[in-house]
């Protein structure tokens, strides 16, 4: 399936990949392309560079989509993901009473847990996607996934959150003695609670007790949260969602991409294609090196030009050596190659240039939107 076909037929396009590969910019450019193709599109972005943020006209975090001032047609909104706010809203929305919500939100471990617990930050991003897909009235959501240590955290988050909500894990926190084999036995309970008390005394942290309090507070929400997580996973795995791997020809990314591919397979998600950023112009990497300088160039300048060319050829050789294993591990076809740009795209005009690289032969004016609204 080509990139134009993906943009025309899907409801969600997720850009995944390691940090620093240009995911945010690619997501923005894909969203511009989709909007130009007539789809009412929203791009959810995590942490755009200042120039891009200004171009998309998204100011501060306010948790709602803003219209992007696209010249020449196309309806595009942009929204910054606010993890903390989404989590707070989720807790408030799922709690049966305001008091119940406040018990969770006021817990002093909540802030820390909401940041570190089992990829909740990534889960919350997916949660925002689900919410927009239900109520936003958009044809297409383009999502820039959060920078995670492992790019998979984002996609694996629902499953891990479910694992966490597993009642056994929760019951252990409420009653730590249940990890022992003869859980019911008094001796086992005495031994373990003694050990845990010792651990608390040694560390000086009342963590076991505090976490127990937290778990009891949030436990009432478990059922509702579980249903929500199942919905999120269904959306990610459905035919309506496409995963686009964004990468760049850098050595460090080979291992990370391999890890990502493995993790995707483990959660039964499939990459539809790869966008390779920062590719050196083919004219510089392929073909034979020219033997004579351009006409009318002084000899010293010719020497410097030749040196510059040799430098770039060396970069290109490294890039080619990286690209081959990278694409093999990605296990999906290349959808587009974007050439190395000296400066990162900072304006809507720059994004349109990128669109030209991503969808080279596509006619951006005529294609009618296909597929229903989200």
């Amino acid at each position, binding site marked *: 399936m080509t990139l134009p076909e993906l943009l025309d037929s899907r409801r969600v396009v997720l850009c995944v990949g*390691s940090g620093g590969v240009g995911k945010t910019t690619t997501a923005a450019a894909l969203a511009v392309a989709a909007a130009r193709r007539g789809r009412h599109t929203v791009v959810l972005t995590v942490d755009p560079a200042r120039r891009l943020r200004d171009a998309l006209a998204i100011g501060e975090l306010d948790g709602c989509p803003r219209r992007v001032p696209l010249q020449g047609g196309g309806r595009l909104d942009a929204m910054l993901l606010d993890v903390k706010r989404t989590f707070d809203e989720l807790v408030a929305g799922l709690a049966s009473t305001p008091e119940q919500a406040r018990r969770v939100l006021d817990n002093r471990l909540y802030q820390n847990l909401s940041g570190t617990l089992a990829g909740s930050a990534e889960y919350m991003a997916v949660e925002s996607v689900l919410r927009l897909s239900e109520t936003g009235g958009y044809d297409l959501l383009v999502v820039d996934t959060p920078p995670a240590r492992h790019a998979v955290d984002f996609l694996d988050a629902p499953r891990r959150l479910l694992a966490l909500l597993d009642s056994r894990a929760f019951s*252990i926190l409420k009653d730590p003695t249940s*990890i022992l084999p003869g859980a019911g036995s008094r001796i086992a309970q005495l031994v373990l609670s003694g050990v845990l008390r010792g651990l608390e005394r040694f560390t*000086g942290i009342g*963590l076991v007790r505090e976490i127990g309090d937290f778990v009891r507070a949030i436990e009432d929400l478990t059922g509702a949260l579980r249903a929500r997580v199942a919905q999120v996973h269904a959306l990610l795995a459905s035919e309506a969602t496409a995963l686009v791997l964004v990468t760049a020809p850098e050595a460090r990314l080979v291992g990370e991409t391999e890890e990502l591919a493995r993790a995707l397979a483990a959660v039964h998600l499939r990459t539809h294609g790869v966008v390779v950023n920062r590719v050196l112009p083919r004219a*510089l990497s392929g073909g034979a090196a020219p033997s004579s*300088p351009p006409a009318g160039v002084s000899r010293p300048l010719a020497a410097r030009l030749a040196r510059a060319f040799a430098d770039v050829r060396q970069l290109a050789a490294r890039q080619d050596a990286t690209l081959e294993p990278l694409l093999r591990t990605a296990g999906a076809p290349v959808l587009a190659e974007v050439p190395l740009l*000296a400066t990162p795209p900072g304006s809507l005009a720059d994004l349109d240039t990128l669109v030209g690289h991503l969808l080279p032969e596509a006619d951006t004016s005529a294609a009618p939107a296909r597929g229903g609204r989200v």
Partner: protein
Amino acid sequence: MPARLPLTSQRLVVVTGKGGVGKSSVAAALARVAVSANRRVLAVEVGRGRLGTLLGAAPGGLEPRSVSPGLAMATVEPEDALADFVHGVLRLRMLSRRLLQSTSFQVLAAAAPGLPEFLVLQKLQAWLDARRLGRRVYDLIVVDAPASGHSLPLLAAPSTLGALAHLGPVGDMLRTVGATLADPATTLVCLVSTPEELAVRETIELHRELARRLGLPVGPPIMNAVPPRRFVRGDEEQIARLEASGERHPWVTAARLLLERRREAAAQVQALRRALGAAPVRLPLLYAGPEAEGGIDALARTLAYAALAA
């Protein structure tokens, strides 16, 4: 005036920055500089990465392994440090294994603010204090720390965890490690960036957190992968004339690419200098890559010059 990077007196150098800026290359080069100044160096990577490959070390774990005369290396995975710690506390291997394997303990460890990070720091402190036959085992520990997002919790662990643990042996360890990190005679935090907008912005944010909020001794920033100067005055006008006359020679295309990259790099070096009020130490872009023969040594030579200037 070259930027000053004092390296001959500190005992702990922590190298951090945005993912992909070349932290491991810089850490490897700093370790080489210190070894060539006759210091006994332990290079530590937090989480398995590229440092071992760059230094030519065999794969390994928590136990320091010898790499070359004066240089050893260790790999710390937070999970290993946690296991090490729990075994030490519980002493009952069967019980501690059960505890470590349970989901809930992983939850507990993840929820304890800064606990895994603290365990890494505590390991570093143990290496700093290690003595054999009355003399220090390592003069300098160079840490290839995780990317910014994970380095911050690591370096903030003494204060975040300190708020929870005042008493007991952990409270004491926290105070010791916190004092080590904050002491400019002992510690130097090196922020690595590349001349790109996002990396520079993250470096500025990290500097604010580490230097201003946590009060850690942060050295001049290290700007890695700056494209070296390849042209002289007047060249660019000539290249522009060639382009204007429709010249499509690959040499001209390559020259334009390098000129543009160098212009962007210069702007980003300026942006970093303005924001931090300190000139960055500039390391050249290695066209053949840091892992190529002589790559780390080339970086080490530039850093040695900065170090000697202190």
